[in-house]
């Protein structure tokens, strides 16, 4: 068997591919976080809880209404997005003029409420959710067996990431958004409804989290605490990429996925810590992240 870096190369390729799949997942989550930070200046600590909510809504739709995976892929993010809009309108919008810290603390509290409520009604051990029929089974790639569903996850996440990037960087709406980030007063003077844009952005950002949740439902156990540990990893990714940088979050998400995959092969115990090591190093060398620029 051929060896690369001391381990059989098929195994290494397999690990890299899996890393990439996880990376696509991270990219999707960190993208939502980055968009929200870019436009609202809020660090959305509730992102993990809303991701969980996406998965749970999919499960609830299936269990109580018989609505399957494909419709849920659209409906669940919409519901999560609507919840997000409600939160933004009633509470979050009052915090924009304050220090970042308050947005962070507010959403932290929010995450506790959402998770605690779901735990109360559905317990912690989780609920089963099967992948759709067409995506069961998998492909033999020669060096590994790739479950069809994982293939779909990488395609879907990359499509959504790319679409969002196009939307923000290449359309008129996106240019308004970017302008609103830089000079909200000026944009308002042009007659653009900035508060509405912010509301929709928050809704969109958390809908992305909800979408990731639905994608995750067949992969992992649907449990109220599924987002708890994910959130700080995703957080770290956004910081490494540079807060508010859309491209940075996507690229870093994929990169961290790969690095984690490699760590799992060479030093598995450290695989959940490696992202923080990278974050510390990056922040020491580039205080505003890889793709970030200084802003006050």
């Amino acid at each position, binding site marked *: 068997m051929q060896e690369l870096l001391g381990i059989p190369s098929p195994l290494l390729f397999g690990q890299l591919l899996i890393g990439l799949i996880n990376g696509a997942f991270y990219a999707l989550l960190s993208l939502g976080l980055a968009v929200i930070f870019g436009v609202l200046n809020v*660090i959305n600590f509730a992102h993990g809880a809303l991701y969980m909510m996406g998965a749970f809504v999919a499960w609830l739709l299936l269990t109580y209404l018989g609505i399957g995976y494909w419709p849920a892929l659209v409906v669940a993010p919409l519901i999560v997005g609507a919840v997000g809009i409600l939160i933004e309108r009633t*509470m979050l919008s*009052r*915090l924009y003029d*304050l220090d*970042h*810290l*308050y947005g*962070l*603390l*507010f959403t*932290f*509290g*929010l*995450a*506790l*409420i*959402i*998770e*605690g*409520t779901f*735990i*109360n009604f559905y317990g912690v051990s989780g609920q089963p959710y099967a992948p759709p029929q067409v995506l069961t089974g998998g492909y033999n790639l020669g060096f590994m067996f790739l479950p069809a569903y994982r293939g779909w996850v990488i395609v879907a996440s990359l499509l959504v990431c790319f679409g969002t990037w196009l939307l923000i960087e290449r359309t008129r709406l996106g240019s308004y958004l970017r302008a609103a980030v830089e000079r909200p007063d000026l944009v308002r003077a042009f007659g653009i409804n900035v508060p509405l844009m912010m509301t929709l952005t928050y809704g969109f950002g958390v809908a992305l989290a909800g979408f990731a949740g639905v994608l995750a439902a067949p992969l992992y156990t649907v449990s109220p605490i599924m987002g708890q540990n994910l959130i*700080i990893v995703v*957080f*770290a990714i956004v*910081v490494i990429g540079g*807060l508010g940088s859309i491209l940075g979050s996507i690229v870093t998400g994929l990169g961290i996925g790969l690095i984690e995959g490699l760590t799992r092969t060479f030093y598995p*115990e*450290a695989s959940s*810590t490696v992202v*923080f*090591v990278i*974050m*510390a190093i990056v*922040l*020491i060398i580039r*205080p*505003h992240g890889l793709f970030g620029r200084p802003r006050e």
Partner: protein
Amino acid sequence: MSGPTTQSADAPTRRLAGLLIAGAGLAVLVVAPFTGLYTVFLMKLMCFALFACAFNLMLGYVGLLSFGHAAFFGMAAYATGHVVKEWGFDPFLGILAGAAVAGAMGLVFGAIAIRQKGIYFAMITLALAQMVYFFCLQVKFTHGEDGIQGIPRGMLFGLVDLRDSLNMYFFVAAIFVVGYAIIYRTVHSPFGQALKGIRENEPRMISLGYPVARIKVMAFTISAALAGLAGATKSIVFQAATLTDVHWHMSGEVVLMTLIGGMGTMFGPVVGAGVIVALQNYLATIGSWVTVVMGVIFVVCVLTFRRGIVGEILARLPHRR
């Protein structure tokens, strides 16, 4: 965020008032265990109050949010637990050793993190704390998720039996008072003024010739050492040091305490710690709603009284302006 100003025409009266308040505080500490309040609860409260005050030194007076203070709290607890249980240290020496370990870590962390501001500072401290967590998970002496258990309370200086809960209480109270006094002195000294200056306008302080980076590292070290003091004491009180003390949830909890009590006030973190510890204790019997209640408090606090309980009271007192 405007801290209390110290310029005053009637310094003697203020000094007298200060002494009176300090005296009253001490009296409360002495009387508390005889009022029917539960001593273990009071000791836990003091440990967390000291922890929150130490944290507040950074957040309230330097304006830097550290999201990794659990690392100091927890590592000190482990260090103390280990030296007392395995090497037979006197509890007092053990606690000092714990605080020293935390202080040394604070120096290193401070030197690494101090150039960052705002959210980046929070993130780099979180990153470092996560590495500490990983370290605690990997090394043998922490005993993994079992933790160091059965740490003997022992005889203080070979004389005072700390297994007696009243003796233990006064020992903890003494540590709390000393720790609190150190924080008070730090804040109300030229050094403390420099800290507040940095919080309000850092470039100006630099142009005035202050060694800003060094001042911040020093403040961070003091804060870490005192957080360690709190953790070390807690490990003796509860006779255990475990992973919960180093987990990032603990870092979040101390932020919550400080915020609820009122950051940038001397007494706020004490009140905040009291509220949270009391909630944990008394909500324990209501079952599964603890998390939700904590979340609601967080949200309400951020939305309606951002200055915290003590901060709001101070803001409403007439003589402040």
